């Protein structure tokens, strides 16, 4: 039975594979070559039990890069409570009419990335660097859009309005 798994298990990557280890605290006392007795090292062992669905991996995935509908518009929008998102069907053989599965800001970042690659193809490294900077700026804008923080200040009761 697994217990205290957050402190007993560890993982690491090895190429395409993930390695799982269990921490085992040693209780043995072993004499060294000089005859001194010291506590043995703690060690990492292979998992010592089987657990069905025991490992949960949360990861960023390459999901549907091209889709058939615009992901940034609602399919129906009749009122505050009645709206639906579009059905995003993956396009396996993308064409010019296919939509990129990104929001508007990331789509603009995508434009900068394509411009950077095109500049690099032409050997214009300065322009490539410029467009890559614009690309990173738009990624940063997209991240900051998710972290809008509002700060409220209480107004004193004696304040004149």
């Amino acid at each position, binding site marked *: *039975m697994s217990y205290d*798994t957050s402190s007993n298990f560890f993982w690491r990557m090895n190429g395409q594979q993930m390695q*799982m280890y269990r921490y085992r605290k040693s209780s043995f006392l072993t004499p060294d070559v000089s005859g001194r007795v010291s506590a043995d090292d703690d060690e990492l062992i292979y*998992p010592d039990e089987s657990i069905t669905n025991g490992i*949960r991996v*949360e*990861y960023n995935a390459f999901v549907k890069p091209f889709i058939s509908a615009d992901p940034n518009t609602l399919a129906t929008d009749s009122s505050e409570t009645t709206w639906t998102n579009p059905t995003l069907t993956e396009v396996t053989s993308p064409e*010019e009419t296919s939509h990129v599965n990104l929001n508007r800001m990331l*789509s603009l970042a995508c434009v900068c990335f394509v411009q950077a690659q095109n500049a690099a193809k032409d050997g214009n490294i300065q322009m490539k660097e410029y467009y890559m900077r614009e690309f990173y700026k738009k990624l940063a804008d997209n991240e900051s859009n998710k972290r809008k923080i509002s700060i409220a200040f209480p107004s004193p009761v004696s304040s004149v309005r």
Partner: protein
Amino acid sequence: MTVLEIMERAGIRDTNLAIAWIKDAVHFIESTQTENLKVRKLNLVKNQRDYVLPADLISINSVSVLDTEDDNKYKKIRRMVGEHYVTEDTNP
């Protein structure tokens, strides 16, 4: 935004090349931002160290192990760095 819109804005005429670069951009974005998180579960197998990860993985956000002693909660585990004293113990 459609592929054509991106091509027009970027001044590219080659559709296949544009699609390849857009795929690269999406891959780049996915590897630096949290846009499409997926969860997959694997069986933890006794005496097995190596586990195959999903093929569509770009970057790992977290790894958890089921704690059967604590109401079957998945608890996030830490990533190991550096070299450690590892024992292949087939009879723990």
